[in-house]
């Protein structure tokens, strides 16, 4: 069927250019891959251009009819609404621009908290899934199958409406470790730094720098002499010990401010709002189920020959795990783990359903409704998530590349 077509005529996906057929029967221009691809791409650009032109045109007309001026001027206007939780100074007199940063920081906070908890829980369950003990392994399997097959939003609602909102009123709070749990959240004692606490923070950072130098020195010594140095425990001791020592020496310059029941609510202490707790629980539990599967698959991907070779070399079981299995498993685990972290960050936008003041709730919700600047607000919100995604995946790619280098 292809006898009547020249050989180079239908290869839009390139391939090696054959020596040209005699110029006598020149291929038609639509059979020339170069010209054809040029034509296709011009067409695509034209269609896209027209599409965007008409969208922009329609949008401007529609906005004009509704009396909305485009532009980012609204960011400096006074917002005039309160936000339940803010990591930075925020009052009703702050600008719409400030609501953006409040929301952004709250999103980053819940994402970071969720990632840490989900990683710990996920690794524990993923390893437990591979346990020799039938009961442990089955409990982990049941956990994974239950939580990853139920929509996250439902889990958030469950924790928020069915668990946290049905807790007792502040007056009947559940008390433990001088913290209080009630339907307005968890109130914990607040550490208040006094004069001279700066030296403890300084000590902490100094210990961080010190342990970095120590690890370089230990590595060099091992390369030169072959002697090992317990770098991990030494660093832990340094990072925890130095600040603690300074803290004690400088006369413990920090007090705990205990919350007290005044009237119908608590005064003092730090209040963790129930929305944050519900979101954090749901996100960590849900994502941990996926991470557990990732971890299990990663460990199973290390071939059994590696373990056998390690024991043939006489490595004890703990060292086999640490130097042979885990480094190789991590290479398999890291890429899917990255996408789980990204998913968690994106899923944190479900906060808006229960009113946790994250970016989507505060900025793409209240601010959008008050200003009507849909285009700008949605574009800024999407840009934030895109940037977070791209930065996370860039970081993970870098980490991945570093880990891959250890391959022979």
């Amino acid at each position, binding site marked *: 069927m292809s006898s009547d077509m020249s050989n180079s005529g239908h290869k*839009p996906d390139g391939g090696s250019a054959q020596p040209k057929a005699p110029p006598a029967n020149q291929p038609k221009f639509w059979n020339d891959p170069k010209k054809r691809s040029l034509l296709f791409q011009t067409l695509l650009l034209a269609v896209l251009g027209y599409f965007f032109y008409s969208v922009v045109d329609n949008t401007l007309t*529609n906005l004009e009819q509704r009396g909305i001026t485009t532009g980012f001027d609204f960011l400096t206007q006074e917002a005039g609404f309160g936000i339940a939780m803010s990591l930075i100074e925020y009052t009703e007199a702050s600008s719409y621009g400030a609501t953006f940063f409040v929301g952004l920081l709250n999103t980053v906070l819940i994402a970071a908290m969720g990632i840490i908890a989900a990683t710990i829980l996920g690794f524990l369950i993923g390893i437990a899934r591979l346990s020799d*003990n039938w009961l442990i392994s089955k409990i982990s399997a049941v956990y994974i199958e239950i939580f990853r097959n139920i929509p996250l939003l439902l889990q958030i609602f469950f924790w928020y409406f069915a668990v946290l909102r049905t807790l007792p009123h502040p007056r009947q709070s559940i008390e433990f470790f001088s913290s209080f749990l009630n339907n307005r959240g968890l109130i914990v004692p607040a550490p208040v730094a006094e004069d001279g606490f700066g030296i403890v923070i300084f000590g902490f950072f100094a210990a961080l720098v010190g342990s970095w130098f120590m690890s370089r020195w230990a590595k060099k010594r091992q390369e030169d002499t072959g002697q090992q140095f317990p770098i991990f425990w030494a660093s832990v001791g340094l990072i925890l010990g130095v600040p603690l020592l300074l803290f004690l020496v400088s006369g413990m310059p920090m007090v705990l401010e205990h919350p007290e029941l005044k009237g119908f609510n608590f005064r003092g202490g730090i209040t963790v709002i129930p929305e944050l707790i519900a979101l954090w629980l749901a996100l960590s539990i849900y994502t941990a189920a996926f991470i557990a599967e990732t971890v299990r698959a990663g460990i199973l991907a290390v071939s059994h020959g590696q373990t056998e070779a390690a024991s043939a070399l006489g490595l004890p079981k703990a060292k086999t795990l640490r130097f042979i299995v885990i480094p190789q498993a991590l290479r398999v685990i890291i890429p899917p783990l990255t996408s789980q972290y990204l998913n968690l960050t994106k899923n944190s936008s479900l906060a808006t359903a229960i009113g946790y003041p994250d970016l989507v709730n505060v900025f793409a919700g209240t601010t959008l409704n008050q200003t009507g600047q849909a285009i700008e607000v949605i574009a800024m919100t*999407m840009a934030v998530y895109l940037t977070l995604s791209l930065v996370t995946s860039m970081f993970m790619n870098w980490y991945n590349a570093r880990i891959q280098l250890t391959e022979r």
Partner: protein
Amino acid sequence: MKYDLQPTLPAPSNTIGVVAWMRKHLFNGPISSVATIVLGYFLISWLIPIIQWTILDADLFGESRDACTSGGACWVFINVRLNQFLYGFYPAEEYWRLNLAFVLLIGSIIWLVLPRTPFKGWMALFLLVVFPVIAYFLLYGNSFGLMQVETHLWGGLSLTLVLAVVGIVASLPLGILLALGRQSEMPIVRSVCIIFIEIWRGVPLITVLFMASVMLPLFFPEDMSFDKLLRALIGITLFQSAYMAEVIRGGLQAIPKGQYEAADALGLGYWQKMILIIMPQALKLMIPGIVNTFIALFKDTSLVLIIGLFDLLAIGQAANQDPKWIGYSTESYIFVALMFWVFCFSMSRYSMHLEHKLHTGHSNRA
């Protein structure tokens, strides 16, 4: 000299039976034994009250909350509203239309899933092309003598299924085009596809839904108005097509290079090569991935509650607000969770089974 075989002796008693199994799997070593005992204790002390609450002490039949007297779960709440959970606000005398569409859907899926049924290809074509058209006329009506049912009356499990099925069916062709475009040698086509895919994959579905419900009306001339459900469907389809494209790209890359080269050597054109040689092989490999994205989409459809559509979860949420039934939210969450779970779990089992089946051969990697 004895020439006949000795009778086979039974296995040593400490290697067979319940005791041996328990020694091997529950009490192999001191740490394991302690873990088993502690975990077993917690498990039993948790499971007994849960079973008591959900089954033994529960009430199932009745008309109002007065029927819930046993102190356990009040399934009366669910029972009274079961039709709403399944059909939303669809008129009761038209339920048969939803039932018929559901039977068609499930029937053709079972046909496809069962091994060794004939005409699988035609059935898949029916499911992907003909069924959505039939379902549209059945559900929306307004023709063939069927009463029109406005989309704001749709809800419950049937709306969840509509969203998920439309999302997957509409995103499949778009995803195929995007995946092919991403592998294209034409730089502009490739970059347009990459930008499209990465943007949709980088933002949360909820902002996409917000965009679809707030910004889509702005994008089109004043006289073009979109139904709320349609806007959600457009958002979901665009979002889903980016994920679908990545699944399909995975499938395309799993096809050995020799297949592409052989098609080129036969002198097939690009579309002939793709449609006749590559896609039939790749699509088979993609089915587990497609099922997995379908599971994710099925769970994600619950987000439409935020833009005011009444899917299964939103119906449950609305039921919890009913002043006559305050305090039974746990029951409704458990019921909705169970519905989602049954669908998602069975699909994930199927996809695992397929992955296992497809694992033989066909990989170009050692």
